[in-house]
């Protein structure tokens, strides 16, 4: 509308609000043909009310014709500027007198252009793959999304612009997807993320922000990540950073950040850790002691070893020739210096162990696993077998598991799995299995699948563990995949399996994303098995799209027809 300082409506409103019965109406004065029309109305109208209504009508229509946007200087672009509108010719009777001048001088110069940088990588062009990706970004499990995006990145491609919004929203919902996503966003994607506060995570520029800013402004999760990566590069400076931040952190943060120090742990850290043993927070003390156990040279651990050594009795050479083994006996009494080292004398209410077993458990928990091997000369497997025969199985098993969790040790994990202490450990072997890297776990899975137990139960259990253990984007080895498919085939052919269809449906859609790509054609053949119950068929149907997507994305530049 015209740039006149007072809108013509302002002149009309007082009379309109109060009522023309009570207030006289005066027409606004405008220049040009419109003004003449309004003057004519005022002169000719039968009543002031009529004049007011007619004026309102004229103004409404003129406004409709003339109203445009608000003036805003276009930012300087390096594209050819928009065609400069020429001087507008004289308005006809219906057009308003004032048309805003097109080139309004911006206050203080033209703003800088906000344009995305040119792209460096080619976009995914295949239409069918774009369709698959659109489906995957909304409906597929996280691991499939990660895998597809990783394959794109490996092929040197980026997301086409039509998928950027969907991708950024998926990354907003799922933190774990972000690394794979950031690799394929391209310059346009990063530019787009900068325009929306909800997509800050993808800015990419944030990664360029100085370390100090990220440390001081970051959330706990971000700080943990930061500290971990710094610890890998330079353990000493990471330790100093942690130490400097300590006074300001709440207990929970202190405990979580302390746990990060496990990376590159060395005797240099002993001083800090020992000091933290007196921290106010129980979580912090626990975390720190667990770390100290991993430093056999530290004073704390030396004391713990000394206490435990007393409980162990080595058989004399003569007796050992006769087959006698080490004996272990729980302490008879608690000493006074226990409290200082975090050993509780009083059993907690919920504890199943007896008093002496409780004491033994605590003592054993502070001793590194390697010491057991070096002191007794037994292998981990032998130690476990020995522990099973002793009176204090539960205390020992639990203590060893606690130490194992902080610093997983392959030999001990395997020993535990092979010689599980049974009910003495209040845990599932799966918890220990989880400590192993997936490559070490495969032999156990294959063993479980081939066991004599009911095929579907072991299948379901192994499938569940595999799905939980395998990180997004990774897949299991070919032999294990083939074994899984063979087992699955047998299960599907077995009509009694229908009762367990629900459990299958929980795992199969994710399982098909974890298998080695080589067995995917065999998976597709599963649908052709006859006489499968309808619920299982539905489950298999849900796997069709993920499997097809995985096959298609094997080569994103030249996709297979899926």
């Amino acid at each position, binding site marked *: 509308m015209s740039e006149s300082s007072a809108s013509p409506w302002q002149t009309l*409103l007082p009379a*309109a609000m109060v009522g023309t019965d009570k207030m006289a109406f005066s027409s606004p004065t405008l220049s040009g043909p419109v003004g003449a029309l309004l003057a004519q109305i005022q002169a000719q109208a039968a009543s002031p009310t009529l004049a007011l*209504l007619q004026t309102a009508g004229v103004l409404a229509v003129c406004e409709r014709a003339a*109203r445009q946007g608000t003036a805003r200087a276009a930012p300087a672009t390096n594209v050819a500027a928009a065609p400069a509108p020429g001087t507008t010719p004289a308005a006809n009777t219906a057009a308003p007198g004032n048309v805003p001048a097109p080139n309004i001088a911006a206050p203080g110069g033209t703003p800088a252009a906000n344009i995305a940088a040119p792209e460096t990588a080619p976009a995914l062009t295949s239409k069918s793959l774009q369709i698959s990706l659109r489906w995957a970004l909304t409906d597929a499990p996280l691991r499939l999304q990660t895998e597809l995006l990783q394959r794109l990145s490996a092929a040197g491609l980026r997301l086409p612009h039509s998928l950027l*919004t969907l991708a950024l929203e998926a990354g907003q919902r799922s933190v774990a997807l972000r690394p794979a996503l950031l690799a394929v966003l391209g310059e346009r994607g990063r530019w787009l993320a900068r325009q929306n506060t909800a997509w800050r995570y993808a800015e990419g520029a944030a990664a360029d922000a100085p370390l100090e800013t990220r440390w001081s402004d970051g959330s706990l999760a971000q700080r943990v990540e930061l500290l971990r990566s710094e610890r890998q590069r330079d353990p000493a400076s990471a330790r100093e950073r942690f130490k400097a931040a300590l006074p300001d952190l709440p207990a929970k943060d202190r405990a979580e950040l302390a746990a990060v120090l496990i990376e590159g742990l060395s005797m240099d850290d002993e001083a800090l850790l020992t000091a933290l043993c007196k921290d106010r927070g129980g979580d912090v003390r626990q975390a720190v002691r667990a770390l100290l156990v991993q430093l056999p040279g530290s004073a704390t651990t030396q004391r713990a070893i000394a206490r435990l050594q007393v409980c162990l009795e080595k058989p004399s050479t003569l007796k050992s020739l006769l087959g006698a083994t080490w004996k272990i006996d729980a302490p008879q009494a608690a000493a006074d210096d226990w409290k200082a080292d975090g050993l509780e004398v009083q059993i907690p209410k919920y504890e199943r162990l007896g008093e002496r077993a409780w004491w033994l458990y605590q003592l054993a928990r502070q001793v590194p696993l390697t010491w057991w091997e070096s002191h007794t000369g037994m292998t981990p497997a032998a130690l476990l077998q020995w522990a099973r025969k002793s009176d204090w199985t539960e205390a020992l098993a639990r203590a060893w598991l606690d130490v194992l969790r902080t610093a997983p040790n392959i030999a001990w994990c395997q020993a535990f799995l092979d010689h599980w202490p049974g009910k003495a450990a209040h845990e599932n072997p799966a918890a220990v299995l989880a400590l192993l890297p997936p490559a070490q776990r495969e032999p156990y899975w294959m063993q479980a699948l081939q066991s004599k137990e009911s095929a579907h139960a072991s299948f379901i259990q192994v499938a569940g563990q595999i799905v939980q253990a395998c990180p997004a984007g990774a897949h299991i080895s070919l032999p294990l995949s083939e074994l899984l498919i063979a087992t699955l085939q047998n299960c599907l052919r077995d009509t009694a399996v229908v009762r367990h269809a629900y459990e299958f449906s929980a795992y199969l859609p994710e399982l098909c994303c974890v298998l080695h790509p080589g067995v995917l054609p065999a998976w597709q053949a599963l649908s052709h098995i006859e006489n499968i119950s309808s619920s299982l068929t539905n489950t298999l149907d849900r796997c069709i799209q993920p499997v097809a997507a995985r096959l298609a994305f094997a080569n994103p530049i030249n996709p297979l027809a899926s």
Partner: protein
Amino acid sequence: MELSAESVLALAPDAASAKAANGLLKPGGWPTLGANDAAVWGECQGSGSKPYQTQVDLAGPTFKCSCPSRKFPCKHGLALLLLRAKDASLFTATTPPAWVADWLSTRTERVQKKEEKQREQATSPATEPSAAALKSAQQRWAKMATGAAELQPWLLDQLARGLGSLGPQSRSAWETMAARLVDAKAPGLGQRLSNAAAGLLQGADWPEKTLRQLGLLQLACEAVARRDALGEAAQTDLRIMLGWPLEKEAVLAQSPGVLDHWQIIGVVQEERDNNVQERRVWLQGQQTGRRALLLEHAFAGRGFEQSWLPFSSHAATLAFYPSAAPLRAIVVSSGGADSASAAPMPSPTSVSATLTTAAVSAASATPAAPADTSPAQEWRTLAQRVADNPWIPLHPLRCHAATPCREADGFSLLWGGQSLPLTLSDAEGWALLALSGGQPLSLMGEWNGETLRPLSASGADGVWNWSLL
């Protein structure tokens, strides 16, 4: 017709159909799949014993399926086209089976008959309306005039007492007056008053907004009172605004057809009261440069028979509704050369006929975009249109070298040194930004006097258009 997932999904009658169609994409569920230049067909295994027979006539596209769904197009039709877009190699059969060939031939017959009938109506001299028709028309005008005559003193009364005296209870009084207008066979007028009633006391600027609406109602009253002095075109515009639509046959009879290569510049679909879907298709003629609006309604679940894909171009003859600023039109016949030679057209001269044949021969090539218009030209055309017919609710705007950008609470368009507020969902806004990357686009939208609703955009990297999802 260019098949892509986006364009197929744009044909879906609602989001649920689109999602269901996506679920039908497994090739295993389609025992038969075939395609040729004219059509795509397939059999889909549903939950019943006999598979559903689905087929699509690509020259439309028009759908037919034997499933019992009342939605149009149904999910099977959509899925069939999606499959074709995704992987054409699945469609092995090339000779259509009987149930496809029969349908296609009856369709072409039916379409030809319909077009012939429309051409006849268009070319036959406008028959004199019968005396009975004239009388009923006069009666209707009389009723509407009575309604307007009641409205006039009511308007004066409101202003005499002042808008300040209105309170929440006034809304029902205004609604009552609106209902009286509907009874007086002027539903358009009643709707405008209803809208004004709904806006009472809403927002800080309600007095100005209400005064504006009352001003327009005043204009309407005066127009009805002076209708005989108005030209015929203005009278038609008035009657359409009042809510008395023109019959399609009347339009075909009165209007000369305009033959051109029409490019679809924007499509939008909205729900109205009573479960009615309204669809607006905006066209721009490549030779004439004229803009046209196809306005259609579909009821409760049924879709629209003809689908229009944005950025596609059709040679067709349109008949414009008579008006002082002609905008709304209907399709008389599609195809260029055929219709030009089959029956004599009332208006095109030999010049335009030769132009058409040349245009048709280039039909298979990608249509050239219509010439760019400057902001000043667009606003001027718009102002002229308002001057000729102030009752038009939505105006088409084509903005070249326009840059979308994000504002604090929405999106706006920088164009010609101005910033226009945009009406669109967040998802649509981000999609537009992703397309532009800060660079200018060519965008088309509907301007309602305050905001712009974008319907299509094209840039260096691709295109975007409004869709149901």
